[in-house]
């Protein structure tokens, strides 16, 4: 076998796999620009005859994708930000402040949280939401999203903060900074790389979350993209062009984020799974 051919065999296999990965995306983008099911079914692999951007306007305005999109965006963002800040404060307290015994207990008990799969607590959380009378409000998602991310966030940020040399703090104390001053002015800026990783992981998780969102929220105006999309599919079962438009709206922000921060995302997600 010629060397050139031998060298290209792995590439041929890998490119075939890449095609399998990418094909659904291409198909969805093409379909979203087609006029109707007829055009899709006649030539599913073909480029659209003409770009039918009307689908995008219809989906965004009539089909309420705009509402779902903003609900998802602000829930995912706010709960990721709050989660990162809480986790950072806790990590600072248990790694840098001098209460070793209490800190150890807190750290260990938070770690237990990583061993429990979310599904197991799902029904008990549902009952809790009923008792708190916050079912069908955004609190019912914001609170569990924020809480659910804490164990992993605290773990990762603590590991990072432990590595900061103590001399920095000593100098800061000499200069008269308070504990919270050391946190906001010295430790937090140094921890930014870990904070970014944790923020992205939490943001993605919240943006994609389906189970809680579908059972804790039933009001249409409060739905997030994953659940809104499912309702949308059930309502527009016959209009695939419009459904594909919805998929494009839902996937694009994630892909943009991935395009810029792929290394951080891959590193954070894989670390999260292995440690979990």
């Amino acid at each position: 076998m010629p060397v050139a051919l031998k060298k290209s065999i792995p590439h041929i296999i890998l490119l075939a796999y890449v095609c399998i990965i990418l094909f659904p995306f291409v198909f969805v983008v093409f379909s979203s620009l087609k006029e109707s099911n007829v055009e899709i079914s006649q030539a599913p692999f073909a480029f659209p005859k003409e770009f039918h951007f009307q689908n995008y306007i219809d989906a965004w305005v009539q089909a309420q994708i705009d509402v779902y999109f903003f609900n998802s965006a602000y829930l995912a963002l706010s709960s990721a930000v709050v989660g990162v800040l809480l986790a950072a404060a806790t990590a600072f307290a248990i790694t840098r402040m001098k209460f070793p015994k209490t800190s150890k207990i807190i750290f260990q008990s938070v770690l237990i949280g990583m061993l429990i799969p979310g599904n197991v607590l799902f029904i008990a959380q549902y009952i809790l939401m009923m008792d708190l009378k916050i079912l069908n409000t955004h609190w019912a998602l914001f609170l569990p999203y924020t809480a659910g991310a804490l164990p992993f966030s605290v773990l990762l940020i603590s590991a990072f903060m432990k590595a900061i040399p103590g001399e920095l703090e000593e100098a800061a104390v000499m200069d008269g900074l308070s504990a919270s001053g050391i946190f906001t002015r010295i430790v937090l800026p140094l921890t930014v790389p870990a904070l970014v990783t944790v923020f992205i992981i939490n943001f993605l998780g919240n943006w994609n979350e389906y189970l809680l969102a579908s059972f804790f929220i039933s009001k249409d105006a409060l739905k997030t993209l994953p659940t809104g999309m499912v309702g949308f599919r059930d309502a527009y079962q016959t209009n695939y062009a419009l459904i594909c438009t919805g998929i494009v709206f839902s996937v694009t922000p994630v892909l943009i984020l991935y395009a810029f921060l792929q290394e951080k995302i891959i590193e954070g997600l894989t670390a999260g799974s292995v440690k979990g």
Partner: protein
Amino acid sequence: MKHTLKNPAVYIVFIVPTIALYGLFFLYPMFSSVFYAFTDWNGLDQTHFIGMQNFTNAFKDASFRDSILNNMYFILFSVGIQVPIIIVFALLISNVKRLKGFYKTTVFMPSILSTSVIGILWGFIYDPDVGPITDFLALFGLEPIYWLAEPRWAMLAILLTNAWQWIGFYIVLILAAILAIPREIDEAAAIDGANAVQRAWYLTVPLIKPIVSVVVMLSIAGAMRVVDIVLVMTNGGPAGSTEVMASYMVNRAIKYGEYGYGTALAIIIFAFALVLTALYQFTLGKTERIEY
């Protein structure tokens, strides 16, 4: 010096919000689950303690037993079929010189997307009227298959979609381990005349055993947890043929208000996952640490 970082007020302010959220949404549900699992609570009537009845009912419940079986299919498929594919692809990517980053980024991509959106997307691809698979089958003169509407195809359709989403994630995990192996080992074998396939099989694969074992564990855990994709694509249908434990639990508890029974099912699922992963760790998954 010590005084500043020994300020209890700051310490308390920094940890209390976390502890409160954690306690309310992790610890409390954990204990309340155990409590509800022994009651017949349905959200309306008075609650009675019924001992182990929920648990005995669960194992008599034919639908639940079928759903356990479907979880086992998930485990068999993801461990028996996906893992070998994952290893092969990770080896292939680690061996190419060009486009390594491109392959890694692309194969990882599906795992950052929402499972519900992927379910919708693949539901479309499987559609017998407008979906592209029908056209593909037509090339070979085959009739359209009603993938999600026929009991004998629906499970396979879901398994393939699930594989499409997650294979890349595990490829990247294993790839990282392969790339961490010192190059000299591989080069020495190459000088001794081992070809690429021999080096992969006799050198790389034994060296990545620990991470493969982790991937198997994660696959088992993932297969026990699976729920979103089933709810979105088939909601357990047709005729319960794709129902998994978690989807059955959710539907029973929330649609029929059987909270007591639902939490008992949740505890059974948790116990199952624990036993399976422990069994695996003490038998096949036993690996020694490898030092280079």
